[in-house]
Structure formats: structure tokens, C-alpha cells
């Protein structure tokens, strides 16, 4: 579904991503792991088009989208839940969900989806009319994922869904990610928290310093020592 070839992202003189190639197949959950500053978020931002890569190709469903604008990539069925959630804090919970469906033209379907997420996350239902900035971190993460799903994406990129959350809440969010996969959604999950990310992953990539260090099934990574070495680049 998604194919990335030799992606390079530079910020001025700093190279954040060096010739990274990866692939995500239909219905797969692929984990992209690595330490802080490894270039994971830069990769995601290049995939959504929020940063312009220096070189490389991004192919979605056989179409080269490297030069397609962010807005049109979302319309093509790709979306991301950004790192740090980025909910619209000055808008209500309901308004956040409505904006998530901005590309859709079926009001009845949009209402149904909102109902579905509200019953899935009752706390969002309780806070429906309140400013989203008043939600707790875990609630904001649920809202951010629900908002992404409102566009009915074919491929969801999740950037550090566990960031800054308590372990219990992280486990709940990954339970939900597992359900999404079971429902047939294709996911690319970027994480520092390897343990949670590996629960449902079909395949794993590990990056550090912008370079790919591992590409394969999660089983081989289960050896914590190997993972540790990859992280520190040993």
C-alpha cells in the first residue's frame, strides 16, 4: 500500500533521515522504532507532506505522491495522528471530530461515526461540548486517534501514541490500535515504547540517527539485548 524509497529529509545542514526505504502492505501493522531524534517523526511528516524531503520517492497505492500537497494526500486515504496529539484545544470535542471529517460529503455517515466513537470512548461523550484542551492526556490521545479515523483513512500513521501517558493508558490505547488492525486498517506506528508497539506488529523497522538498522519480524527483536544494541547503534 505504501512504499518509501531512499527518503532523505534535511533541515538546513542537519540530515534527519538518510536514504530510508520502507514498505507497508495492505492490512499490515508496521512498527517504526527508534530512540529520540532518530528521524521517526521527520519520516512521518515527510509522508504527510508537512516537510518536503530533499530526495526520495513516496508511493501510495501505486501512485507517486512525493509532490502531492498534504491536503490531497489526506484525500487520497492517508492520514496521521501527530506526535503530541495536536488536538484543537480551543475547539470542543465535537468540533474536533467534525473537522476530522472535513473531507467527507456524507453528513449522515459522519454523524454515525461520531456516535460510534462516543460509545467507544464514553469520556468523550461526557465532554462533547467542552473545549478539548480540558481533556487529560490519555483522553486527548483517544480524541486525536478518533479524529484521524473520522476521515475514514485507508492508511493511518500514528506518531508516538504513548508519548507522556501512564502505562495503563498506553496499554488501553494499544488495545484499541490492535482492534483497528483487526478491522482491516493498515497502520504504521512510530514508537519509542518498543514493548507496546511489538504487541500487534507484523513487521518492524528500527532506525537510529536517520538510518535503518533493522528490518524484519518482531520475533527476532524480542531479544531485548539485540534491541538495546540497535537503539544505541552498537
Amino acid at each position, binding site marked *: 500500500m505504501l512504499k518509501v524509497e531512499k527518503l532523505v529529509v534535511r533541515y538546513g545542514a542537519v540530515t534527519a533521515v538518510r536514504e530510508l526505504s520502507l514498505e507497508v502492505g495492505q492490512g499490515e501493522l508496521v512498527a517504526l522504532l527508534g530512540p529520540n531524534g532518530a528521524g521517526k517523526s521527520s519520516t512521518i511528516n515527510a509522508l504527510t507532506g508537512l516537510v518536503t524531503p530533499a530526495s526520495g520517492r513516496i508511493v501510495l497505492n501505486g501512485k507517486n505522491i512525493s509532490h502531492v*500537497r498534504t491536503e490531497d494526500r*489526506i484525500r487520497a486515504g492517508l492520514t496521521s495522528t501527530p506526535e503530541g496529539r*495536536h488536538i484543537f484545544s480551543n*475547539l470542543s470535542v465535537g468540533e474536533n471530530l*467534525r*473537522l476530522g471529517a472535513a473531507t467527507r460529503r456524507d453528513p449522515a455517515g459522519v454523524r454515525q461515526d461520531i456516535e460510534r466513537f462516543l460509545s467507544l470512548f464514553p469520556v468523550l461523550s461526557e465532554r462533547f461540548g467542552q473545549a478539548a484542551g480540558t481533556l487529560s492526556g490519555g483522553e486527548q490521545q483517544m480524541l486525536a486517534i478518533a479524529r484521524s479515523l473520522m*476521515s475514514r483513512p485507508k492508511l493511518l500513521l500514528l506518531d508516538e501514541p504513548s508519548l507522556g501517558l501512564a502505562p495503563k493508558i498506553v496499554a488501553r490505547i494499544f488495545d484499541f490500535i490492535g482492534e483497528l488492525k483487526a478491522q482491516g486498517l493498515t497502520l504504521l506506528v512510530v514508537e519509542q515504547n518498543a514493548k507496546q508497539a511489538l504487541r500487534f506488529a507484523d513487521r518492524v523497522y528500527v532506525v537510529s540517527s536517520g538510518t535503518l538498522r533493522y528490518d524484519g519480524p518482531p520475533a527476532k527483536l524480542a531479544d531485548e539485548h539485540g534491541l538495546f544494541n540497535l537503539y544505541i547503534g552498537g
Partner: protein
Amino acid sequence: MDYALQQLLNALAFGAEYSLVALGLAVVFSIMGLVNFAHGEIIGVSAYSVFLAAALGLTSPFVAVLLAVGMAALAAVVFERVAFRPVRYAPTTTGLLTAFGVSIVVQNLFMLLISPKPQSVSILNGLNQMWFFGPFAVSSLQVMELIVSGLTILALVLFLNRSTLGLAIRAASRDFATVRLMGIKANRVIATAFAISGALAGIAAVFILARRGSVSPDLGFGLVLKAFVACVIGGFGSLPGAAVGGMLLGFIEVGLLVALPQEYAGFRDALTYAIIVALLVYRPEGLLGQRIELGDKEI
């Protein structure tokens, strides 16, 4: 009683006009971080369009009002497309300088192509009459200014709270990148904000024309400075703040006009700004502004 009522209406009408122009500045600033000092020239384009249409034989005031608002919205969108879009991601000072540049160029175009002297426009004079309610005489223009501004602000509030594009504009005021992640076209959000800003300026232009009966190249510039001050009072980037700031500025100005003895009238502006400075000492973020940490706003 008559005098007090008259002054109250004065304050409300001035305040309403400042609010309209300040809201126009705030809508654009809130999503782009651009203080559009060319906003006055949007008022200018609007007023000169009415002048030219009247010179070409237009007689209907109704059509003139539609033309004024439409041309202002169009001018704002064209300014954005031609001047501001190329510098959208440049540092904010670049945007500010661009705005001054547009302002100077357009003012000079008015001078070169039409005339540096004020030109008479009488087509909207009919809006400015005296209405008598029992013992009270009020200006029809001021009453209309108040009602139209009120309705305009109401329409703006409904738009920003109900429509998807309105929600997107509010969201973009905090986090533009994430709005794009919703699949909403950045260009569309910005063009809409400019069109709204222009339409508000056009409504203000109608009232200015009806009151002054003439148009000159620097027509809007002074008003935009006042609107800028109104935005600062209310909290820059806050839309309710712009409306409240404009109203407050109107009240301070008219209040000082009434309270100051004739021989001190020259101190009026100085006192106005002294009051505003005092206010900002206590609330540096403005009346309704929020202290936004630098990290809260993602560009």
C-alpha cells in the same frame, strides 16, 4: 438627556466601526500572524469602486453597497494571492513589510490613476439623515451602523461556530499544520479569512462614504491604525477581543470628547493612549487575549 443619548449613540457608532475594521485585522492575524497594514487600502479600493461606478452612471445606493462589500472582499483575496501568498512561510517581519509595501503601492495608484485630492461621492448620502423619535433626533447612519455591525458580528460568530470552514479558521489560529492534516486546503482557509476580512472592511467603507461624502487616497489608513489599537486593547488575534477593543476605544474617545473642556481638546489623543497604556500595564495580553506559550503555537 438628548445630549447624553446623542453621545452614547456616537460612542456606539464609532465603536462599531472600529470593531468591524479590527475584526478584519484579527481574522487574518489569528491564522497567519500577519498584521495587514494594507487593510486600509482594502477600504480604499471599496470606496473608489463606488466613486468610479457613480461616475459611470450608477445611481442605486443598494447596488453601491453590494459593490463596496464585494470589491473589498475581492481586493483582499487578490492582495493575498499576489502579495502575501509568496511570503506566507517567511518570517513575520517580511509579511509586515509586504503589507506596508502593498499599502504604499495601492495609495499611490489611487493618486496616479484618479487624483491625490478628495473626490466627492454622493450616492450614499441618503443613508445619512436625521430621524426623529418624539423629542429625540438621531442620525440614521449611526443607528444603521450599530445594527449592521451587530448583525455582521452575529453572522461571523455563526459562521465560525457552525460551518466546517469556520471551524477550520478557528483551529488554524492555533495549529495550521494539523488543520492541513484534516485534508482541509490551506489556501482555501486563508482565502476565506481574507474574504471575510475584506467584506468587513467593505461594510466599514460604506459607512465612511455615507458620513464623509468623499474619498481620498489615505481614506483607510488612519482607521486601520485605530483598529490596530483596538486589537491591542482586546488582545491581538482574539476575535471577541477585537470587537470589545473597538467598542471600548469608541467609548474612550467619545467619553474624553464629552468630559474634556474645550481648551484641553488637544490632549484628547494623548489621554486616549495614556488610558490604553495604563490598561496594558495591568493586562499586557489585552483584555481577552490569552497568554500563549511560544510552544503552544505550531507553525
